[in-house]
């Protein structure tokens, strides 16, 4: 009884500080989402799904202030040919953004999208609502209800360059809620990049509908500002022979919870989700993934690697659910941590739930230290301990980074990881 009352009061306190945007095509979806949050209540420490990550700073009424981080590192993806869309503390910055027109894709700001775009209305809050089962994700419903900005992206062809969502953090107290909706039409193909710390507290939701034969690539870099907090959700629905590949680099951040909920609904679809994170000290990183196989002959891969030092914490909760008729499912899941000292910890909960009989699913989770023999071998060839440790660390992360198909993006991510490791040597 006490627990329930506490949950409701936390939820009320948080919702009390927000106002539901009125009007527009998303109004009904927002009202429904609000009802969902109220029914579920916001997560609380005793919730099984939040066993390893404390939700309080994500659910409390205001954001904990986060200092702005400054180094002279050039922004990631900055040298690439891309269509850049900039948000500053969660608000679209038209001036700083590129012109939104690009062949093969239509991009609109969430609030400005025309009322008659049925495709977005059919998605906004829809995949999120579906993803609330069997495990509730109240922060995502809160996002659908109150998102103050975002973009709707309709991919009809194969745009010539990636769409880069850049999130700047300029105010120490910013509390941002962004919601993006992406529809990739049959046979179309797009790459979406995301980068930047975004806000002191960031709640972001992305719903992605990948139609038959369509391809969606996603590469994200969450980095820099050490004190920032983020709860993000990706909800994806995959059609027949579609491909979804998402990779996330996380460096720094006192608290990051990345949830990814994927439903393979068409036969022969492929979903890969990968993540590489590096954390030093007061760092808590949580990858929570839920992949549902609901069609025949689909493939899913989860590859998560975490490098933790000076008391950093890594969490992985990953599930593969194979429904009764999802025969010939090929599911793979690996989560590994490299603990660079004894103070750091990795908490993993890998799960398989399989109702079909003709499937191949494997999962594994390990925690380990640097291989001393390999380190000595490198040093005996003249590579000093610091660079040798970095080389082995990058090798550990490689399986995750290699999930990125595009070589330029892969190199860029590797460069960032190498630079981070060099800055954080003992």
């Amino acid at each position, binding site marked *: 009884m006490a627990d329930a009352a506490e949950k409701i009061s936390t939820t009320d306190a948080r919702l009390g500080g927000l106002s539901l945007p009125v009007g527009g095509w998303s109004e009904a979806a927002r009202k429904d989402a609000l009802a969902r949050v109220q029914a579920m209540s916001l997560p609380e420490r005793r919730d099984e799904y939040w066993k390893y990550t404390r939700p309080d700073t994500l659910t409390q009424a205001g954001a904990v202030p986060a200092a702005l981080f400054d180094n002279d590192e050039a922004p990631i993806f900055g040298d690439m040919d891309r269509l850049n869309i900039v948000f500053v503390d969660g608000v679209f910055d038209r001036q700083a953004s590129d012109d939104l027109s690009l062949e093969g894709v239509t991009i609109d700001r969430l609030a400005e999208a025309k009322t008659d775009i049925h495709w977005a209305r059919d998605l906004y809050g829809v995949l999120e609502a579906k993803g609330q089962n069997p495990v509730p994700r109240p922060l995502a419903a809160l996002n659908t209800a109150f998102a103050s900005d975002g973009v709707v992206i309709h991919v009809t062809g194969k745009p010539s360059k990636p769409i880069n969502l850049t999130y700047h953090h300029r105010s120490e107290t910013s509390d941002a809620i962004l919601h993006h909706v992406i529809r990739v039409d049959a046979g179309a193909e797009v790459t979406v990049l995301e980068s930047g710390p975004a806000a002191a507290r960031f709640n972001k939701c992305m719903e992605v509908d990948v139609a038959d034969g369509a391809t969606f690539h996603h590469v994200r870099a969450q980095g820099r500002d050490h004190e920032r907090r983020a709860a993000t959700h990706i909800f994806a629905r995959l059609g027949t022979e579609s491909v979804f590949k998402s990779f996330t680099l996380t460096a720094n951040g006192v608290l990051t919870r990345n949830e990814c909920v994927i439903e393979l609904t068409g036969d022969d679809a492929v979903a890969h989700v990968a993540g590489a994170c590096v954390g030093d000290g007061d760092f808590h990183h949580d990858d929570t993934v839920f992949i549902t196989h609901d069609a025949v002959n689909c493939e899913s891969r989860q590859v998560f690697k975490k490098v933790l030092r000076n008391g950093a914490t890594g969490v992985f909760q990953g599930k593969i659910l194979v429904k009764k008729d999802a025969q010939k499912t090929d599911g793979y899941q690996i989560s590994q941590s490299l603990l660079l000292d004894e103070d750091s910890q990795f908490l993993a909960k890998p799960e398989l739930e399989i109702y079909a009989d003709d499937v191949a699913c494997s999962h594994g989770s390990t925690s380990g230290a640097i*291989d*001393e*023999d*390999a380190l*000595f*071998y*490198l*040093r*005996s*060839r*003249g*590579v*000093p*301990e610091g*660079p*040798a440790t970095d*080389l*082995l660390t*990058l*090798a*550990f992360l*490689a*399986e995750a980074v290699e999930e990125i198909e595009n070589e330029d993006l892969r190199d860029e991510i590797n460069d960032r990881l190498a630079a981070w490791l060099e800055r954080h040597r003992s």
Partner: protein
Amino acid sequence: MLSIKNLHVKLEEEDKQILKGVDLEIEAGKVHAIMGPNGSGKSTLSYVLSGKDGYEVTDGTAMLEGADVLEMEPEERAAAGLFLAFQYPVEIPGVGNMTFLRTAVNAQRKARGEEEMSAADFLKAVRARAKELKIDADMLKRPVNVGFSGGEKKRNEILQMAMLEPRMCILDETDSGLDVDAMKLVSEGVNALRSEGRGFLVITHYQRLLDHIKPDVVHIMADGKIVKSGGPELALEVENNGYGDILAEVA
């Protein structure tokens, strides 16, 4: 070149003395061979010289061209010109052989205050040397030693030695696991490096390697000490009669 005096080494973790007073003097331009029964301490000597953890020097010294190697970090020893071809080369998944070699070459150059080797020059040098050792392009691309056969690993050690051009080369049973042709290749690789300014310490159990790499001096190690030294004929004696006579003679 390398001067070892009264070297005593015990295991760090347990009270076990392994080297019990090793004396060894290797001059530049010379090839010394060490033979000796299993467990006599040959590999331990090579590890202690290259700076592996887990051993404690309780007495004695080891100087490389006048510098105290025992005081140096492993990478400093390498930059000072010491090289160990491992008895058991280590597999390093995820690190490409090429990347590894280039990182090593340039790290040593940097430590010595020399200019780094350009990517193009490096590639040319590796390709030429790899060809001599019959190491194909695919092996260069693969992760360090991963999935290499025993003989391939040994050839890869010699490739590293050829690229790093060390002044003091220690080869720990580089011949084990090599077929007859590979033994010849490896020996040719070693012989190509023989020069005025370079010393070699070749650890082996078999005379056959020494047919190819002709040693100037042969030492017999037993129970943590050099018990006998002589010319190449000493290796032949071991080959024919085993260690029995020699050990009995010095006992």
